[in-house]
């Protein structure tokens, strides 16, 4: 039992199936440790991750993301274009205070990010639903709004219900654990068409602030650990590197077209 610490792994860039396989194993790690765990990672090439039950045909017919590799996540939510984002997976046993309802873990991660973005002089807040919200079934995660998404007021402008979303998360609720995927949009992804070009932190920055993806994430995971008064432990090795055979074996399922086209 190592529930008194929050292990954080920084992983090397990997392809979609490898990242999804590593995250499934991360959920088992949370179960084994009896407490929360976080993995931060990036992608070897711009990739679309599709929500657990989104229609593949809808993604394939979206001209804005045409040609990008697609991987289906085990978690829900909308499609994310990875490449200029910071991606995380957090896992926690259902018996943990964060594992009760879906919104609990969602809020823990997002409230900590709002606090960190505030330190970096972004005017960030959790989204409150309004009549101006776009359709909840839009293909792309950053085109949707859900309660608790992290949104940012544009520099120099008033706070608007339509302020851009910079962070969203979604879950897979397994037998004894919860796996949460999330994405913080660091900058606009320029390799996609117009409707998929969402503003990221770089475009929404007001006064210059000294931050990198790494420094921002370090502050964020420290905040998350503080929320339950546990000690964050940044791991010296990568999570995937420590589980290479298992990740490679499990990645086969995420490479299988039957998984990707399950809906």
């Amino acid at each position, binding site marked *: 039992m190592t529930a008194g610490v929050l292990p954080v792994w920084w992983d090397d860039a990997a392809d979609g199936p490898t990242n999804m396989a590593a995250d499934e194993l991360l959920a088992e790690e949370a179960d084994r440790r009896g407490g929360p765990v976080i993995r931060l990672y990036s992608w070897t090439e711009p990739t679309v991750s599709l929500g657990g*039950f989104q229609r593949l045909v809808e993604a394939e017919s979206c001209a804005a993301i045409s040609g990008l590799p697609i991987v289906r996540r085990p*978690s829900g939510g909308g499609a994310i274009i990875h490449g200029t984002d910071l991606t995380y997976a957090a896992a926690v046993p259902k018996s943990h205070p964060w594992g009760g309802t*879906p919104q609990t873990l969602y809020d823990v991660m997002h409230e900590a990010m709002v606090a960190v973005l505030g330190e970096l002089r972004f005017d960030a807040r959790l989204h409150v639903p309004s009549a101006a919200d776009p359709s*909840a079934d839009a293909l792309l995660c950053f085109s949707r709004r*859900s309660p608790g998404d992290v949104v940012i007021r544009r520099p120099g402008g008033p706070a608007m219900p339509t302020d851009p979303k910079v962070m969203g998360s979604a*879950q*897979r*609720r397994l037998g004894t654990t919860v796996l949460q995927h999330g994405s913080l949009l660091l900058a606009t992804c320029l390799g996609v068409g117009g409707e998929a070009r969402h503003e990221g932190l770089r475009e929404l920055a007001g006064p210059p602030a000294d931050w990198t993806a790494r420094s921002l994430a370090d502050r964020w995971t420290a905040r998350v650990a503080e929320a339950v008064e546990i000690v964050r432990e940044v791991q010296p090795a990568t999570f995937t590197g420590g589980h290479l055979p298992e990740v490679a074996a499990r990645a086969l399922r995420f490479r299988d077209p039957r998984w990707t086209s399950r809906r």
Partner: protein
Amino acid sequence: MAEMKFAKSHEWVRPEAGGLATVGISKYAVEALTDLVFMQLPPVGRKVKAGESLGEIESVKAVSDIYAPVSGEIVEVNSALPNQLDTLGADPYGAGWIVRIKPDDPAELAGLLDQTAYDALVKS
């Protein structure tokens, strides 16, 4: 009506006439998931073990497995449900039933929670 039992994973099961058992998910689980958007049911004829996933349900932010509370063969599914997900919230113990199972061992029901124990679980 026979007593309804609950799994810790929030499925309910009710023995029916003819030795079948009807399965659904509890009101607590439906409310915790919020805003259901999709459901995948198993095929009729599939054999499941207790604790094994028999289907999946997606809310706006989460995909969850639905676990078999008892082992047996799925003999009927509520095929109208995926197109009427509101029914799960409106009548989770009636019209919101999900599958009917022919249990391998009816004695398995004894190992599940009764209403009082389940209520205590969700309050803890």
